[in-house]
């Protein structure tokens, strides 16, 4: 079982690498932005950070990097792809997920914990959560204001592709709970087939007791669980 973390110039790839390697105890390697071959991986992560400085539009330059051809192919074949923060922006710019990202409504960067409501617990990424559950996860972004037109939004909702929404501690979806103006309080969405997930909050930043929150760990455990079941392999979870 092997994870790959994509490194664009300017990505913060070390955080996801650390969590897979040290917290979950799984095999992981970096995928360089010029690499073409992704056949060896069970799950590919596009990490947070500021690929290419986020110049032009967040994620736009990364979306045309050489590695993206491989990523598109990998997604077509049903490979698991997780885009976090900037990774989510790259997936949108590359057209692997629907919609686009704008600057936060109050045009400032925001870093703090938010509450998320889990809207779909049947995905490779969410099977260790319960639908309707509220979790606390940190955000750190200046461009997390998700946009999609109404028709496409309706389709997303219909297909269960809205995976996480910003909410209050009690689980209400209110404007006050929305940190960036994102349409429908959307924090994360998946592809039609469910094998590509993008989200703005950072689950990799909350997987250890010492950091005060482990809510993000279950996202990674979900992936292991799903891979295990689908490959009929035993999965050991460390950390």
């Amino acid at each position: 079982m092997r994870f790959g973390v994509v490194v664009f110039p300017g990505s913060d790839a070390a955080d996801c690498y650390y969590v897979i390697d040290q917290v979950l105890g799984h095999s992981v390697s970096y995928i360089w932005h010029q690499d073409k071959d992704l056949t060896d991986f069970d799950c590919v992560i596009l990490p947070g950070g500021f690929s290419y400085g986020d110049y032009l539009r967040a994620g736009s330059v990364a979306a045309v990097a050489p590695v993206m051809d491989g990523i598109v192919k990998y997604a077509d074949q049903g490979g698991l792809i997780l885009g976090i923060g900037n990774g989510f922006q790259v997936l949108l710019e590359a057209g692997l997920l629907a919609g686009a990202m704008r600057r936060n409504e109050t045009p400032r960067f925001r870093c703090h914990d938010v509450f998320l409501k889990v809207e779909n617990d049947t995905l490779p990424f969410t099977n260790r959560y319960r639908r309707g559950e509220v979790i606390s996860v940190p955000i750190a972004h200046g461009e997390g204001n998700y946009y999609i037109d109404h028709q496409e939004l309706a389709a997303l909702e219909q297909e269960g592709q809205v995976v996480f929404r910003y909410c209050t501690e009690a689980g209400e979806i209110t404007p006050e709970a929305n940190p960036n103006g994102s349409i429908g309080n959307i924090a994360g969405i998946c592809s039609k087939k469910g094998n590509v997930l993008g989200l703005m909050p950072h689950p990799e930043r909350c997987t250890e007791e010492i950091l005060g929150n482990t809510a993000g760990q279950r996202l990674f455990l979900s992936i292991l669980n799903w891979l295990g079941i689908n490959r009929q392999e035993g999965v050991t979870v460390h950390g």
Partner: protein
Amino acid sequence: MAEQKPIWQEMGLTAGEYDHICEILGREPNYLETGLFAVLWSEHCSYKNSRPVLKKFPTEGKRVLQGPGENAGAVDIGDGQAVVFKVESHNHPSAVEPYEGAATGVGGVTRDIFTMGARPIASLNSLRFGSLDDPFVRHLLSGVVAGIGGYGNRLGVPTVGGNIFFHSSFKENPLVNAMCVGLVDHDKIVRGRATGTGNLVLLAGAKTGSDGVHGCTFASEELSEETEAPAVQRGDPFLEKLLIEACLEVMEKDYVVGIQDLGAAGLTSSSAEMAGRAGTGIEIDVSLVPTRDEGVTPYEIMLSESQERMLMVLEPQDEQAVKDIFARWGVEATVVGKVTDDNIYRLRDGDDVIAEVPVKALTDSPVWYPEQREPEYYQKLRSWKPDGLPIPEDLGIVLSQLLASPNIASKEWVYNQFDHTALLNTVIGPGADAAVLRIKGTPKGIAMTTDGNSRYCYLDPRRGGAIAVAEAARNLSCVGAEPVGLTDGLNFGNPEKPEIYWQFSQAVEGMSEACRTLDIPVVSGNVSFYNESKGEAIFPTPVVGMIGFLPDAGKHVTGAFHHPGDKIILLGKFFPQLGASEYLALVHELETGAVPELDLEQEKRIQECCRLLIRNGSVKSAHDCAEGGLAVAVAECCIAGKMGATIELPFEGREDNFLFGEVQSCIIITCTPRELADVLQTAADSEISALVLGQTGGNHLVIHDAAGCALIKQRVEEMEKIWRGSISKCF
């Protein structure tokens, strides 16, 4: 018609200095050489005004691996690991262009850290602005905060702490001090030395433009209507991130003999300083330096302060390997010169020698001993007595006013714009007394803070300086960390004015005293003079950045009240006073009085006791009593824990004094009733006083006087709203 000033004077040299240069060279310097001397002998680069005073700092200690003199200081944290840290100021650039000024400040100090071979793991800052009522000040603050975040967030280095203070003296001359902290193995520390005759000099990073020429002379003048700012330097955090990776990789592989970032005075100072430290000569060919725009002159190439550039010395056989690493990271790297053995600083433009001066002449600038004089205000203000000062009727309202004061209110509008959770080390982020980071792969942690009370330093620079050190150390102790080293940012007005120089020298005196007693060495720092606008100086502001060590990062506390029914204890002798307090300034509009007394021996014992209690796990929370006095300190603990408290203050005298008067060396801790006897015993063993004030619980903060009379009763939720919203509602 005004007489044309001679070139050397235009460039900021004095007649005496110019004569001295002619004497050293035995001839008149040419235009370029004059420029080299002007920048290297500017206050900003040479510390010519401050060197004798800075000698007072204690700089040695058992943990010190690198003291002042290199790009940053380094302190041992066991297991062969070291913490590298430094403060840098970017005040004048931020006054002119707040976003880029602050951003390039962060970029610059971060380069000082990875220059040492260390990986940057955290940033902090210390900021001073005018009053928030002023739209121009809000513009400066928004820009500076966005700039710090814009650069630091893109770098992926979390900004975990800082401090900020508002006062009208900073209206046009804000202070923007940035601190960076890095982690390195002892045997990987690299220094800024150009050793080895025949070794190559490599310039890596951004192309050189004509921006920032004379930035350091700009920093060595007062701001005035006529001040001509150099072309604004723009930072490119994206390039810096690649530069960090590439530089750390070449250093990791031991290809680097010496390395230095290009900061103030760019290529000139970095190359001269590297040769100066090594006692060698150096030769640079300006025609080899990649330039950004056409027509950049040799003079501009040498003095440009274009950002994101590094200079390093390599052995010739490693050239290709090093270039390959830079190429892989997409960073340009070019050989521009070589190390020589003739102690001469030589610049070429192709075959032509365009400057040739002894290295020592550039780096050993003349030292000045400016005159100092005690300012008239000093004795007058410190003898102020509160007699006759009315006591406000509703002390609850006063508490609300203080919680809403931008100097006390929550700073989350500021720090939520900073990524403080990147890199997965942040155990305690901004908002607490100090930040705590775990060291991955070990149980260890480090704590860090920046402190400094500008008002105290104005009223009494010596005691104010000592308090800055004591308070920083106390803040570290309050999270359970032992202070191990400090870096300073010394921000003052024009040192050529005797009163200003007196403030400077007094402050350093006080800081040194505190460092000695508390046994905390100074390992790096920065001096920023000429913080004046229209002839008016800022409040003198020595900033302290301090690092603490925790053997076990898990054994920390914050100030938040935890459990209902916990006992609230005041550690330390409680002698509050109204002089110099935030209360006096805010409610009575008086900035006067003596600064709270500081007994350093007492301070030391209290901090040790606090750390001991945290390490044993006997206390649940700890928070120091600072601006706003005891009432504000307890209110902050309530707000942080979303929990009420009922306390009784058995003190004599004016209520406003024991509620809001300020005091040093006092810490509020909590423990369970079961632990109480132990805690009191530990305090007694440490020979410090401990007074049980009351207990936690409920939705209100209730404060009684000795007679049981309620002085204050406030809903915690209400206090929280006031405290949280005060700064954000200005934007």
